[in-house]
């Protein structure tokens, strides 16, 4: 069924192989006989590689690709085939146009940095992803609409199956409603829980603040007491000073009374003791 056409056999037979030096392989080789050709020496030249097979090319073509068989590949000119051919040619035309566009854009390639290209590719990839996602969503929506339409049509028939479907749907609705109720309850309980937690947190904060205030207040109290003590001691010192002065005055008065009375106090022991005591200085310092 497959006709194998050997490309090189007819080409080789008439022309004698010049057997140039660079071709160590056997003669039926279409390796570029023009050795001075600019083509860099490909497979045959590097000797160290394990006997590189020369670049041979052969072509396989089926005798007939059309399932209809018969004569010629283009014998079939029915309308669908022509339309298909037209679509294919349109697609190939679009490919060539894209290739041309791509070729043109390279003219400005000197000033474009790699970053720009990278960011451009990232943007494009992102757009592709978004397009894919939106396409999938739309397909999903479309399929849902189709299912609903099919269901509606089925209901219109109103037979055994549709009644069962109706029962199932009512059951589904009931279950969904109970689910919604339970979810609402769960929601409420969660809110209560959150409120409790919030209050506990505020209480904790306040407790912490109070604890912090305690040492400051104690400090203040101590300072007040200290200051009070200081004030009291000062008062007492003043009183003491006053008393001392009074005592000193009284002493001086007694002394002057005794001296003024011209009594010989040195003879009487008790009087002597009194006078000497009066001499004692009241101030300690």
């Amino acid at each position, binding site marked *: 069924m497959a006709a194998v056409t050997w490309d090189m056999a007819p080409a080789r037979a008439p022309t004698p192989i010049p057997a140039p030096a660079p071709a160590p392989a056997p003669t039926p080789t279409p390796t570029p006989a023009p050795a001075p050709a600019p083509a860099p020496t490909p497979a045959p030249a590097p000797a160290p590689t394990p006997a590189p097979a020369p670049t041979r090319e052969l072509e396989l073509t089926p005798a007939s690709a*059309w399932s209809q068989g018969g004569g010629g590949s283009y014998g079939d000119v029915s309308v669908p085939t022509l339309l298909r051919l037209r679509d294919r040619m349109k697609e190939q035309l679009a490919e060539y146009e894209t290739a041309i566009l791509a070729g043109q854009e390279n003219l400005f390639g000197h000033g474009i940095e790699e970053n720009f290209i990278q960011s451009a590719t990232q943007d494009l990839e992102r757009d592709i992803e978004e397009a894919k996602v939106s396409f999938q969503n739309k397909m999903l929506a479309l399929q849902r609409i189709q299912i609903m339409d099919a269901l509606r049509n089925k209901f219109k028939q109103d037979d055994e199956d549709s009644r069962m479907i109706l029962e199932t749907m009512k059951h589904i609705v009931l279950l969904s409603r109970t689910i919604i109720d339970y979810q609402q309850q769960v929601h409420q309980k969660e809110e209560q829980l959150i409120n409790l937690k919030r209050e506990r947190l505020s209480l904790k904060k306040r407790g912490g603040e109070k604890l912090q205030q305690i040492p400051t207040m104690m400090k203040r109290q101590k300072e007040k007491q200290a200051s009070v003590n200081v004030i009291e001691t000062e008062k007492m010192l003043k009183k003491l000073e006053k008393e001392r002065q009074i005592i000193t005055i009284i002493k001086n008065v007694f002394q002057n009374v005794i001296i003024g009375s011209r009594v010989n106090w040195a003879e009487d022991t008790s009087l002597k003791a009194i006078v000497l005591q009066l001499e004692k200085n009241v101030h300690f310092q």
Partner: protein
Amino acid sequence: MAVLRPFDKLPKLNSGVLLFVGSDEELQRRLAETILQEKKDFNINIHLATSLPLPSERDHLRPRIDLVVFMIDIKSKYSLKNVETSLAYVDASYFLGKVCFLVTGVGRKNDCSIETNAVCKLGEAYCSPVLFCELELEGVRVATAQRLVRMLGICAGHIPGVSALSFVSLMRKSNDD
């Protein structure tokens, strides 16, 4: 002239051209015959070559090549080197989806000379899909032939709305963002 360019020539009406590049000719021929036995609605021409560049004497006879399949045998390091050297003779615009790497011989795990990691890196570096297959098994060969026929149809521009560029975007890993 030695470099393959995708848009140098006009395409033939309703046909696709496949080029196999690989060091194992027998395997190429068998896969080519399996492909030709597939049911399809356009002409398929298959060119087999052991390495690039293709001989330039037949340039004017050769049609526009739509899909280049590089065949790598997992048991031979030489095939990988051969493919790597041949990659230099393919124009950059081919790598927008018109190139595919086919790794054969994956049925036997204990005979591997090249690592799959290296091949996958090659595929990523050149933005081309990498297919793994075992051509000795009939079923896998037929499946691979079907895949290649589909890819050829897309690369030749037969499917409206799908171009070879979609292979590049399909290969984008989703964990890149």
